[in-house]
C-alpha cells in the first residue's frame, strides 16, 4: 500500500453525460464573464502610470506583507492546534473545533467588531495594554495582520487537521520502532505525509488573507498607506476614481493567478 496521492486521470475517450456539459459551461461563464467585463474596462493607455501611483504600490505592499504575515502566523500557531484537534482526546473537543471554525462562517465584520472589543484601545485586553504602553493594534499594520490572521487561521487549521487525520499513523509507529523520538517522527514522517494539506492550507489561508475586507476595515480602519489594503483601496476607488479601482483589481487578479496557477495541480488536489 502506498500513501501517495496520484491525481486520477480521466480515461481518454471517456465522454461526460450530456446533461453535465451545459451546466458546467454555465458555471464557467458565470465565473469568467465578470473578469472579461472588468478587463474590457481597463484603461490600458494610462495603466502604467496608475500602477506607479503610490496609492497602488503602498496598498499592494501592505496587502502582500499582511497576507504573508497572516500565513506565517497561521502556520506557527495553526499546525500545533490542528495537531491537538486531530491527535488528542479531551472533553469539549468538538466544541473547541466549532469555536475554531466560527470565524470561517461568521461575517468578517462581526469578527472585526469582536476583535475591537478584545484588542481595541478600550478592549478587554487592548485597554490595559494601551494604558501601560501606549501600544494599540487598531489603525496599524499589526491590526491588519491580526484581522487577516483571525479570518484566515481556521482555513489552515481545518485543512491540516484533515491531513493529519488521514495520514497513516502506522508509519509513525514504524519510525518509532526504528528509534526515532517524537520530534524526528514528526519532522521526517508526519510532516512529509501532511505536506500536501499543509501547502493547500497555507495557500487557502494566504488567499483568504489577501482578499480580507470586512474584519480589516472594522478593526484596523482604512488609513491610506497604513492600513489600506488592496481590497479596501479598490472599494474606496470605486466611489471616486473608477479607472484606479480597475487598475488595482487587475493587480490583485495578476498576483492571485501568479500564486494559484503554479500550485493548483500540485497542491490543491488534496
Amino acid at each position, binding site marked *: *500500500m*502506498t*500513501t*501517495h496521492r496520484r491525481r486520477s486521470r480521466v480515461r481518454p475517450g471517456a465522454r461526460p453525460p450530456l446533461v453535465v456539459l451545459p451546466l458546467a459551461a454555465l458555471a464557467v461563464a458565470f465565473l469568467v464573464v465578470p473578469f472579461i467585463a472588468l478587463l474590457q474596462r481597463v484603461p490600458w493607455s494610462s495603466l502604467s502610470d496608475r500602477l506607479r501611483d503610490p496609492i497602488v504600490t503602498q496598498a499592494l505592499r501592505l496587502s502582500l506583507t499582511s497576507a504573508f504575515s497572516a500565513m506565517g502566523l497561521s502556520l506557527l500557531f495553526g499546525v500545533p492546534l490542528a495537531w491537538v484537534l486531530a491527535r488528542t482526546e479531551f472533553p469539549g473537543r468538538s466544541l473547541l473545533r466549532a469555536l475554531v471554525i466560527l470565524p470561517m462562517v461568521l461575517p468578517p465584520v462581526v469578527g472585526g467588531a469582536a476583535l475591537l472589543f478584545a484588542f481595541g484601545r478600550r478592549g478587554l485586553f487592548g485597554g490595559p495594554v494601551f494604558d501601560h504602553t501606549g501600544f494599540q493594534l487598531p489603525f496599524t499594520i499589526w491590526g491588519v495582520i491580526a484581522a487577516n490572521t483571525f479570518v484566515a487561521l481556521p482555513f489552515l487549521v481545518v485543512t491540516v487537521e484533515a491531513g493529519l487525520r488521514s495520514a*497513516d499513523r*502506522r*508509519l509513525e*509507529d*514504524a*519510525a*518509532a*520502532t*526504528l*528509534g*526515532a*523520538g517524537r520530534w*524526528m517522527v514528526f519532522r*521526517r*514522517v508526519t510532516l*512529509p505525509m501532511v505536506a500536501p494539506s499543509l501547502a493547500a492550507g497555507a495557500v487557502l489561508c494566504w488567499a483568504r488573507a489577501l482578499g480580507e475586507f470586512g474584519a480589516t476595515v472594522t478593526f484596523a480602519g482604512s488609513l491610506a498607506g497604513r492600513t489600506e489594503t488592496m481590497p479596501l483601496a479598490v472599494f474606496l476607488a470605486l466611489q471616486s476614481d473608477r479607472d484606479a479601482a480597475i487598475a488595482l483589481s487587475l493587480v490583485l487578479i495578476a498576483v492571485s493567478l501568479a500564486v494559484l496557477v503554479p500550485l493548483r495541480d500540485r497542491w490543491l488536489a488534496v
Partner: protein
Amino acid sequence: MLSADVRLRLGELDLVAAIEVGDGEVVALLGPNGAGKTTLLRAVAGLQPIDAGRVTVDRDVLDDPEAGIFVATNDRPIGVMFQDYLLFPRMTVVDNVAFGLRARGRSRAAARAEAHAVLDRVGMAALARAKPRELSGGQSQRVALARALAIEPRVLLLDEPLAALDAGAKLHIRAELRRHLAGFHGARLLVTHDPVDALVLADRMVVLEGGRVTQQGTPAEVARRPGSPYVAELVGVNLLSGTAAGERTVRLAGGAELVVADPVPGPEVAVAVRPQAVTVHRDQPDSSARNTWPATVADLAADHDRVRLQLAGPVPLVAEVTPAAVADLDLTPGAEVWVSMKAVDLAVYEH
C-alpha cells in the same frame, strides 16, 4: 531472549498471554483474526501499553506497570517488520534503511554506507535509489527486513510478513524469508494466521485464541494433540517429506513425484499443502496433468460446513471438500478417486 507476560484489555479483546522466545529461536504466534496476535506484538514493541505483566529482553525490563517501568518504543532493542511493510513512501530505499541509523545519531554518509551493506545482504543493493512504490511485494519485504535489521536489534518481530503478497509470489518469498531469517541470531517472533508460514518459518508454535494461549510446542507436538478445533484445522496441513529429484521436482517417500513451482532448496525437503488445496476427482484428470495420482477414500469426517477426507494411496493425504462435492462425487469410504494439486499450492522448504 524475549519474555512477555502481557495482560491488557482493548475494546472487545481481553488479552492474557505469556510467551518466551529464546535467542536463535523462531516462534510463530498463530491464531484466528481478533485473537490478539498483533496486539501482543504491539505490546512487546511498546506501541500498546499493557495493564499488567512484564516484558523483558535478556535482563532488561521494558515494561512493568506495577514497578512503574515503561521503556518507550524508540528506546527498545526491538526491530519490527510490519504488515504491509510500511516503508516511508517519500524516501528512497536506502534512506528507509538508513532511517534507524540516523535516529541513532549516525551521520548521513555513515548511515547510508551501513544501509547499503544491509541492503546488499538481502540482495537489494541494486535498487537502493528506488522509491518504495517502484518495488514489488517481495522486494518491499526485503527492504522492510533490511530496515528492521539495520538497527541490530536483539529481538525481531514480524507481523503477518506474507499476508500482503499474492499467492503466486508468496511461495517463493516465504522460502527466501526463511533464508534471511536464518541470518539473524536474536529472538524472532512471527505473527501469522497461516499455518504454512508457521511450519516453514518457525521452530515452535504458540496458538492464541480469544486472547489466551491455547497451545504451544513444535509443529509435530502440536499436531499430535490438537488442543482445540481451531488447532486441529490448523495442523491439518499435509506435511510430506521427500528428496530433491530435479530443479523443481521432489520425490516423496512413497515414490510419487511432485512438481513444485519453486526451485527445490536442498537435498532433504518437506512439502506443505493445505487440505483445501487438494482437489478430488472421480475420474483421472487430463493425463498430462502433473501432481495427480489415484487414492482411496479411507474415512470422511464432517467439520462445520466442510468434509475432511482421509485419503490412502501412494501418498496419504487429508483433503477438505464441500458436502456438495461429497454428494456429486459419491464419496464414501472405499471409493476410488484421483487427487491433484497445483504446483503453486505446494510450499517446499528444507527439512
